[in-house]
């Protein structure tokens, strides 16, 4: 049973928490403060130093930013959550543990052992015992390779935003934003507001997907306002939006100096003769987000495939995964944005505490989920994107595996699925464990929806820490 809200969580090292929340972005923050409101003894873990996750990433205190809100949509929502967290921390109802990267969840007789490596340098490990775990690990960007995408200056759209929001820096002065999905407009809007020139936003779809279901859009006017806000900023800065187009090559030797943009057909196949060159000194590229669910799939949690092909966790109306004691909120259940993540965090906290949430919260989740599915369907990568690859284009950045080697594995060595391609080519076997090349490798491996990736270690772990074995929370 939950303890009363007034009881401090300061506990002996062996004591379990009622709930460990993994990830301190919108979903995790909302879940942790709600769980504490409801009387659960809660620990909030995040690999980053501060709360906020990727969406609310913000400058470190040392940078003295007076107006961090200027880089954020809905900044006051974050400060509200952060204030509530601080109050709970002061009352010792929640512990926030930054720099805690969770690399495995282990089921134990009475809950979970949460295995953690600590600090950006993974200096030591700890093990956090908890009765229940709520996964709020968010998402990372889906990438599709193109010739030249490994050049310095080509960065992910989310990466450009992260570096800007946290470090107040830009990768260049003239930045082409390209790929697909709503993040592109947000990224372009941030970049121009922060002083960059954005010669083009290159979007592979034509956004017609949205128009087909106007009823769903009308139900979430806030999303329209947010989109219109980005659009207005881009208009004011004279940023050209190029729909149904893609960056098909980045040029340069030591760093990117230009890109070639081409029109795409409905299948995302580049249309010959439509190429045009745009000079730039940086490219920010991304094709939507992929749920980060390794910790759950390793425990056998069931998954579902969203309309854009991204694999997320299958949860019920109470945000329970199919693993007893494991809940999931936000992008891990299918990418849907910060508003949805917060709603799901609150709902999941209620479920863990065995409390009934307000019906309005449930209705809001349903509405936002529908919108998320619509967005996903609109931005599903078309199969023709492989038309811009060349035999020597590296697909796996870590192991430098080119397209030709993957095609050889498929055409001549009998690989027809991503795992076999990986075994035969090393694509996906490097430091990032296939997070960057996974979608491309799956596409090149042949038809069929790949299942979830399996990563028993959710992040690299120093061998000495594995050798040391589990230890209590320090």
């Amino acid at each position, binding site marked *: 049973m939950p303890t009363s809200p007034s009881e401090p969580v300061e506990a002996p090292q062996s004591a379990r928490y009622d709930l460990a929340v993994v990830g301190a972005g919108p979903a995790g923050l909302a879940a942790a403060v709600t769980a504490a409101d409801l009387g659960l003894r809660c620990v909030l873990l995040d690999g980053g130093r501060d709360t906020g996750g990727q969406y609310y990433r913000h400058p470190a205190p040392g940078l003295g930013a007076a107006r961090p809100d200027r880089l954020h949509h809905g900044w006051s929502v974050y400060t509200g959550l952060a204030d509530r967290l601080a109050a709970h921390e002061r009352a010792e109802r929640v512990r926030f543990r930054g720099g805690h990267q969770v690399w495995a969840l282990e089921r134990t007789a009475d809950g979970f052992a949460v295995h953690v490596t600590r600090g950006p*340098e993974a200096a030591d490990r700890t093990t956090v015992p908890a009765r229940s775990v709520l996964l709020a690990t968010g998402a990372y960007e889906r990438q599709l390779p193109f010739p030249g995408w490994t050049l310095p200056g080509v960065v992910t759209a989310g990466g450009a935003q992260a570096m800007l929001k946290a470090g107040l820096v830009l990768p260049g002065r003239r930045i082409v934003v390209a790929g697909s999905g709503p993040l592109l407009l947000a990224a372009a809007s941030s970049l121009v507001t922060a002083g960059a020139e954005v010669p083009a936003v290159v979007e592979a779809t034509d956004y017609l997907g949205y128009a087909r279901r106007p009823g769903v859009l009308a139900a979430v006017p806030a999303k329209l306002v947010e989109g219109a806000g980005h659009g207005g900023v881009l208009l004011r800065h004279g940023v050209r939006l190029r729909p149904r187009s893609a960056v098909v090559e980045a040029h340069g030797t030591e760093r990117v100096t230009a890109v070639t943009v081409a029109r795409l057909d409905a299948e995302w196949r580049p249309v010959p003769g439509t190429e045009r060159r745009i000079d730039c000194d940086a490219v920010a590229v991304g094709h939507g987000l992929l749920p980060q669910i390794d910790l759950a799939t390793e425990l056998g949690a069931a998954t579902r495939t969203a309309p854009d092909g991204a694999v997320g966790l299958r949860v019920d109306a109470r945000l329970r995964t199919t693993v007893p004691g494991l809940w999931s909120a936000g992008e891990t259940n299918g990418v849907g944005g910060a508003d949805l993540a917060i709603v799901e965090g609150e709902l999941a906290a209620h479920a863990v505490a065995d409390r009934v949430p307000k019906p309005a919260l449930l209705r809001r989740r349903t509405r936002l989920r529908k919108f998320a599915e619509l967005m996903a369907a609109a931005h599903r990568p078309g199969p023709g994107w492989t038309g811009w690859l060349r035999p020597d284009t590296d697909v796996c950045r870590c192991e430098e595996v080119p397209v030709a080697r993957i095609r050889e594995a498929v055409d001549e060595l009998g690989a027809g699925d991503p795992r076999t391609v990986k075994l035969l080519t090393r694509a996906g076997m490097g430091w990032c464990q296939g997070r960057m090349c996974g979608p491309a490798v799956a596409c090149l491996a042949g038809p069929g929806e790949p299942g979830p990736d399996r990563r028993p270690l959710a992040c690299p772990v120093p061998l000495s820490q594995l050798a040391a074995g589990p230890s209590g929370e320090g």
Partner: protein
Amino acid sequence: MRRTPAELVGAEPGPAHHIEFDGRPVPALPGQSIAAALWADGVLAWRTTRVGGRPRGVFCGIGACFDCLATVDGRPNQRTCLLPAEPGTTVTTQEGNGRADLAV
């Protein structure tokens, strides 16, 4: 003159310090990551790949892609997008796996 990110958020950072990159000083603001300090100095690459010897730097910016690895204070394979730039931090361009000294 266009606006800078620091102007946008009204930043009044603490006093700048320096890190060392390949033997030369690079300014850094308190709270910046190593990668951010290098970007601010116009540096985009601080690693060469194992197979092709190609230059790499930040790609994902959130610690997921491991492209921004460098040798930091003598330790190879450090993610510079996550590591804070502390005064005196020494960053060296990492060649390949960064552990050639261990080869036998």
